C-alpha cells in the first residue's frame, strides 16, 4: 500500500513504469521541499501549544463544571482531589506502575513483538509456513485473547510471569499480520530494479522489503503498546503480586476509594503515553520518507 505503487496509477490510465518513475521523482522533490530546519523553537512551541491548551481547558472544565453539573465526587473526583491523593501516595503508585510496566507490559511487548516479526519473516520466506500459519494469524487477530488472562494465571502462577505471557500472546498476532502485509507491499518496479542488479533475496529483504515494511511494522508496534498495557492490567485482575498497578486500581475501586483509583489510572496513562511516544519517535526517525509524514499532502 505504499502510495506510489504503480497499481494506483494504472487506474488513471498511465502506464505503470512511467507513472512509477515519475512518482519516485515527485516524491523525492516533496521530501526535499518539506525538510525543515532542525529544532526550531517556534515550530516546537507550535506543536506543543495546542494539546496544552486543550489539556488546561479540560482540567478547568473538570474542576469547575463537573461539580456544578451535580456530579458527586464519588462518581468522578475533581483533578485537585486526584492530584492531592497522588501526591500523598505517589511513591507507592509510581513503584507499582514501574513494576507492572517493566516486568509485565514491556517484557511481554518485546517478546511478543519479536516473535510476531520472526513468524512474519518466516512466513514471507517459506511459503509453506505462510500457508500454515497466516490463516491462523488472521483468525487469532479476531479472537479476544485477553479472555485467556485467567488461564495464564492458572497455568503460570500469580507472579508477574503470567501477565508477561498474556502481554506477549496479545502482541504476537498484530505484529505477524502487519509485518507480513508490509513485507509484501513492495513496489514491483523497485523489485525489478534490484533483480536487474542481480540482488539476491536476502539483499532485497534488507534493502527493499524491510524498509518498505517499516510503516506496517510500526503500525503493529504502536497498537501493541496499548495491548501490552491492557493485557498487564487486566491480567492482574485475576491474580497478581501486591505490587501490581492493575491490582491496586481494581482494589481501590472495589473499596470505593475513587481518588486513589484515579491516581493509579493517572500513572497508567502516563506510562502508556511515554511508551507510545518512544515508539512514535523511533518510527519518525526510521520512516520519515513515508508519504504520511510528508508535508503538503
Amino acid at each position, binding site marked *: *500500500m505504499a*502510495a*506510489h*505503487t504503480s*497499481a494506483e*496509477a*494504472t*487506474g*488513471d490510465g498511465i502506464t505503470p513504469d512511467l*507513472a512509477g518513475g*515519475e512518482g519516485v521523482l*515527485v516524491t523525492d522533490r516533496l521530501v526535499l521541499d518539506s525538510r525543515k530546519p532542525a529544532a526550531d523553537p517556534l515550530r516546537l512551541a*507550535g506543536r506543543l501549544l*495546542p*494539546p496544552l*491548551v*486543550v489539556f488546561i481547558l479540560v482540567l478547568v472544565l473538570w474542576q469547575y463544571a463537573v461539580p456544578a453539573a451535580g456530579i458527586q465526587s464519588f*462518581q*468522578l473526583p475533581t483533578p485537585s482531589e486526584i492530584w492531592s491523593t497522588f501526591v500523598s501516595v505517589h511513591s507507592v503508585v509510581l513503584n507499582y506502575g514501574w513494576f507492572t510496566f517493566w516486568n509485565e507490559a514491556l517484557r511481554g511487548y518485546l517478546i511478543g513483538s519479536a516473535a510476531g516479526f520472526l513468524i512474519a519473516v518466516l512466513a514471507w520466506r517459506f*511459503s509453506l509456513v*505462510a*500457508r*500454515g*500459519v*497466516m*490463516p491462523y*494469524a488472521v*483468525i487469532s487477530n*479476531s*479472537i*479476544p485473547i485477553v*479472555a485467556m488472562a*485467567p*488461564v495464564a*494465571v*492458572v*497455568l503460570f502462577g500469580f507472579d508477574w510471569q503470567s501477565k508477561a505471557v498474556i502481554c506477549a500472546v496479545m502482541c504476537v498476532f498484530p505484529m505477524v*499480520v502487519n509485518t507480513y*502485509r508490509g513485507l*509484501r507491499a513492495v513496489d514491483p518496479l523497485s523489485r525489478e530494479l534490484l533483480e536487474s542488479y542481480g540482488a539476491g533475496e536476502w539483499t532485497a529483504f534488507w534493502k527493499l522489503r524491510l524498509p518498505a515494511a517499516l*510503516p506496517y511494522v510500526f503500525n503493529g508496534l504502536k*497498537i501493541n503498546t*496499548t495491548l501490552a498495557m491492557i493485557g498487564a*492490567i*487486566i491480567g492482574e*485482575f485475576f491474580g497478581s503480586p501486591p505490587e501490581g498497578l*492493575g491490582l491496586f*486500581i*481494581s482494589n481501590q*475501586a*472495589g473499596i470505593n476509594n475513587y481518588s486513589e*483509583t484515579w491516581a493509579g489510572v493517572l500513572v497508567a*496513562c502516563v*506510562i*502508556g*503515553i511515554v511508551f*507510545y511516544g518512544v515508539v512514535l519517535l523511533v518510527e519518525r526517525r526510521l520512516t520519515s520518507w513515508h*508519504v*504520511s509524514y510528508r508535508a503538503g*499532502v
Partner: protein
Amino acid sequence: MTGAALELGSAAVPGSRPKSRLQGRILDLAAIIGVFALVVGFWYLAAIYYNLGSLRLHYDDLGQLGYWNHLGFWRQAGAALNWSTPTLPAPHQVLANLWSRLDESPSASGNLWVDLGTTGSEAVLGFLLGSAVGIALAFAFVKSRILELSLFPYVVMSQTVPIVALVPALVVALGLGLRAKVLIAAYLAFYPVTVSAVKGLRSINPLAHELMRSYAAGAWQTYLKLRLPAALPFIFTGLKIGITASVIGAIIAELPVGSEFGFGRAIIDASTYGQNILLWATIAGCGLLGLALYLAVVGTEKLVVRNRPGEV
C-alpha cells in the same frame, strides 16, 4: 492496491509457484491441517503435563498414592485427560462442554446462545458507534492540523486508560444496563479505526493529488474521489482490529459484578470457582464470537473494496 492484493488468506501466497491451482489448494490444506495437528498435539501433551502433577497431589490427599503409582504411565495419562477438575482441560473436554451448553434451556445463564447474544449485541453496537466516531475523528484530523495537534495525543492517551478499573465508576454513572457496556466497547473500538484512517487518508498518491489540484477539485471532491478510496483499505484494516477490540470491550465491561449474562460474567464465575473446563469453553465461545464478527467485517470489505470503480 486492489482488494485482492490485501488478501491475507491462504489463497494467494506469493513466492511459491505451485504447478497448478489444485496443487496449491492441497498444499494450503496440508499446511493448515499440519499446524492444527501440531497445536492440538501440544495441547494434549501440556494437559497431561499439568494434570499429572495435580492428580498426584489429589490422590496423595486421599491417601491413595500407592494405587496411583501402581497405574502406570498410560493409564495415568488417560486419567489426566479425563479428569473432571483439571488444571488444563484437554480439547475434547472443552468441546464436550461447549456442546452440552448449546442444549441447555435458554433461560439458564450457562447457555451459550444467551451469552453469545448478550456479548455479541454489546460488541456490535459498540463497534458501530466506535467506528463512526473513529472515522469522523480521522477526517477532522486530516482536515485540520490544529485539531490533530491538540487532540491526537488524547486519542492515544484514551487507550491507555485501564478501562476495566473504571468500570465500577462508570456503572455508578451509567447504570447496569446495555449503555455502559456499549460505551466501553465503542471506547476500545474507535482507536484502531482512527489511527488507520488517518494514515490511510494521508497515504495518497502525490501525483493524483496534484492532478486533482490541477482540475481545481474542491476539498470535498478530493476527499470523496481520492482520499476516501485510497484510505478504504487502511480503514478496513482498522475496522478489522476494531471489531475485535469491541468484543474485548464488551467482555471486560461484563467482568465486574452486575452483569447477569454474557461471556465476561461466565469467565468471572468459572475463574472464581476454579472451573477450568467451563473457563476454556467460555474462552472458546469468545473466540467463536470474535471470529464470526470479524468474518462479517471481512465480507463487507470484499463487497465495498471490490466494487470500487477505476481500480484494477
